[in-house]
């Protein structure tokens, strides 16, 4: 029964994105970017001397796609719940046997499903364009897309949870900030360990590192400083589990706060 209700909310979230053309717009942009990625990769492949250049070009374009999905993930998640609270659609919903955690989980599943649809579309195009000619690169790209999905699902959880306790714009800014922090807090450790820097700068670096470790989803574990095609599966699995646990934790905290909130 709870699953049916969660899926009903998720379905409605997806339907809303589809009907309001958000999902279609996202999909078209992702496909166009991926096509560009494939064409560049092919062009580079034609030139045998640029083997390293190919990897860099593919990685660069992949980052572009990732950034686009990143922005869309934030947009979808921060607009999923606040408009419904503002328009009081939730009054009718919670008058029915729908618990708040089911509603939040349904929204999360719906947003993740939209993201998954995009990632799958990108993966399909990558497989079609590069699959035959460079299977190794294609598999590496698929792995990277999977890590995108996992790390952005954490971002969705974070943004959704924040919208339950903060105004929409603030939630968007904070989730972007935290996500950025999650990518750079390792840099804080480097700063803290650099002896020639002044004391305050090292203290600041240490602060960024420790706060970043505590409050962010540790997406940098997914995207290590090694090129994406060299990351071992084992490390990524651990990181993925950690990021998923983070998603569950922030959603649980957000829902707890939301359950206590008066509408």
């Amino acid at each position: 029964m709870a699953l049916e209700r969660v899926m009903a909310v998720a379905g409605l979230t997806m339907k809303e994105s589809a009907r309001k053309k958000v999902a279609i717009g996202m999909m078209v942009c992702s496909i166009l970017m991926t096509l560009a990625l494939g064409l560049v990769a092919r062009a580079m492949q034609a030139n045998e001397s640029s083997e390293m250049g190919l990897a860099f070009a593919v990685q660069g374009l992949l980052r572009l796609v990732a950034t686009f999905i990143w922005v869309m993930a934030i947009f979808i998640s921060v607009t999923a719940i606040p408009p419904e609270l503002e328009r009081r659609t939730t009054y009718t919903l919670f008058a029915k046997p729908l618990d708040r955690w089911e509603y939040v989980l349904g929204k999360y599943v719906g947003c993740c499903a939209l993201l998954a649809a995009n990632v799958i579309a990108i993966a399909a195009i990558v497989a079609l364009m590069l699959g035959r000619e460079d299977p190794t690169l294609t598999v590496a790209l698929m792995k990277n897309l999977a890590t995108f999905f996992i790390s952005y699902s954490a971002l969705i959880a974070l943004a959704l949870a924040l919208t339950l306790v903060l105004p929409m714009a603030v939630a968007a800014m904070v989730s972007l900030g935290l996500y950025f922090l999650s990518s750079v807090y390792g840099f804080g450790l480097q700063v803290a360990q650099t002896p020639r820097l002044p004391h305050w700068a090292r203290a600041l670096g240490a602060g960024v590192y420790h706060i970043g470790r505590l409050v962010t989803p540790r997406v940098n574990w997914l995207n290590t400083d090694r090129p994406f095609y060299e990351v071992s599966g084992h490390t990524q699995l651990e990181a993925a589990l950690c990021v998923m646990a983070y998603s569950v934790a922030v959603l649980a905290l957000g829902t707890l706060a939301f359950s206590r909130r008066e509408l």
Partner: protein
Amino acid sequence: MQSAIELDHLTKVYRSLAGGKRTTALDDVSLSVAPGEVFGYLGSNGAGKTTTVKILLRLARPTHGTARLMGERPGGRIRHRIGYLPEAPYFPDFLTPVELLTFYARIFGLNGAARRQRIDHVLELVGIAGRRDSVLRTFSKGMTQRVGLAQALLNEPDILLLDEPTSGLDPLGRREIRDIILDLKEKGKTVFLNSHLLSEVELICDRVAILRRGKLMRLGTVDELVSRGGVEVVLRSNGVGLPAGLTALRCDKEDLEAGMARLIVERDDEVPSVLRAALDADVEVVSVNPQRETLEDLFVRIERGH
């Protein structure tokens, strides 16, 4: 017999975020609504009507006191037996009525043929079966209100909480909604009705409660609450003035030149003797009208603090 709705010393105080300003939305309200009763809950804007409904739906928590629905605390399983129509309902406007009701039906756990039958039935009942596949953004306010009522009736609730159900409807639509409420009453459903349309409340409610600034000011049947204003007797005396037997009565308006006099007879049992005296004195009786305060008069009186 267990009450359908019971409020026991219900108090709700809203505090500002800073904690300084306190607003008392409900102040020690106690009442009970019997099963099968159509209960009117009246009050001007800010009187505490919506706060009460929010507490009954567990969208807000009381500061003191309790609220019960069929003996159960709000929220939880009792929601399967409640239907709620909010004031000025807003639904996802990209959906059609059928899609919206299907979504709500899934929340109630209705599936398959039962779901389809129930949706068809409520759409027919509220008169929008012909627009079942039009998207809601093309609906007028009145049509949206009907969709709202359809979703409130979807689970065949025992208790209906209706917040301004006839808002935005034309006279015919209002009549139809009124008939639906009366039909629900016949089926033994309890209806808790928030409304500003006092004439309608007067027509369909078994009992009413009137709130003012969070306080319960009156509670009872309409007949109990509104005062009888006596009986108006209009006489035409053909310029000769009123007979001696009638001059002792309160004369509300007398136009001797036209020979007209309007008397207010305070007690019903005095009316026959007044009429007899008039006829004996050859004074023409133009009309006899029982006077009664309307619910609106009472409401205005309470609002003005009388």
